[in-house]
């Protein structure tokens, strides 16, 4: 998505701010996958294409979700029915707007936090860049590896 003139002006004032740089705008994006409903609003709002709404859904995301989350309710029902582990990702029909896997490209992320503002489930958190080392390590520990998929 091309930047407007005003956007380029703002980006030029950000230290080290190029569109493709990892630390462009600088917020740290923490994704709480267990709250995500898979609607893809973050992908629709993302200016750099770092979030992408997938055409498939990994069934393990339902089974791994905690029971008190929205996906966990469906996963709990599925767990009672399942006869073997899921075969793999299932293709999602066009009109099923939730239950999609959101692909997150860490290297494209500007850290602008647009995804966090637009998230209806409050599953994405943008932490400001001036946070010192201690909170950032805590948040890295809070986000398991699977969230970066």
């Amino acid at each position, binding site marked *: 998505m091309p930047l407007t003139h005003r956007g380029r002006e703002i980006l030029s004032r950000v230290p080290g701010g190029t569109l493709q740089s990892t630390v462009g705008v600088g917020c740290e994006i923490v994704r709480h996958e267990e709250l995500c409903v898979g609607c893809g609003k973050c992908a629709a709002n993302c200016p750099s294409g770092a979030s992408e709404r997938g055409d498939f859904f990994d069934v393990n995301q339902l089974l791994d979700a905690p029971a008190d989350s929205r996906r966990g309710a469906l996963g709990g029902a599925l767990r009672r029915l399942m006869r073997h582990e899921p075969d793999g990702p299932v293709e999602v029909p066009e*009109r099923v707007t939730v239950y999609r896997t959101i692909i997150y490209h860490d290297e494209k992320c500007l850290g602008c936090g647009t995804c966090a503002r637009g998230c209806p489930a409050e599953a994405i958190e943008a932490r400001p860049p001036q946070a010192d080392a201690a909170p950032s390590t805590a948040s890295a520990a809070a986000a398991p590896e699977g969230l970066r998929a």
Partner: protein
Amino acid sequence: MAGAASTAPASAADRKIVAFCCRECAYAAADASANARTPLPPTVRLVLVPCTGRVSPLHLLSVLAEGADGVMVAGCLLGQCHYREGNFNAVDRVAFVQRLLKSVGVEPERCQMFTMSAGEPPKFVAAVREMDRVICGLPPLPRSEAGGTRQAPLAVDAPLTAARGAA
């Protein structure tokens, strides 16, 4: 009625099929067929919904997990939804649930979608009998009690607020 229900052994009568029927077409057709005293298979339970677009994957899977052997969604003819495109949503959601079931080894035929207009009671009866024939031909749906947590009936909107409060 010469369907499978009358010839199958007594265990077939224990099967349960839940039919989500839209108010405008399928339930009206069911009503008309009942007025004509057409017998329906004893396995089927009708659930009235305003539109099949209201039926979510959570409804369909919960019904199977809570004791039904099959679930069917009956709506208006494609393109004739009274809310314009609710039944297109339902078609895709049913297809999604079928794929979910298939990926964990459950027969996808246990969840099916049928369409009919309000003026076609025989088509509704035929759809229910077809579903009954399919479900009675399958073994009872096994479910494990250990894995899942039982959800309250109206918990469709509750988990999000609960999770938000915890976060």
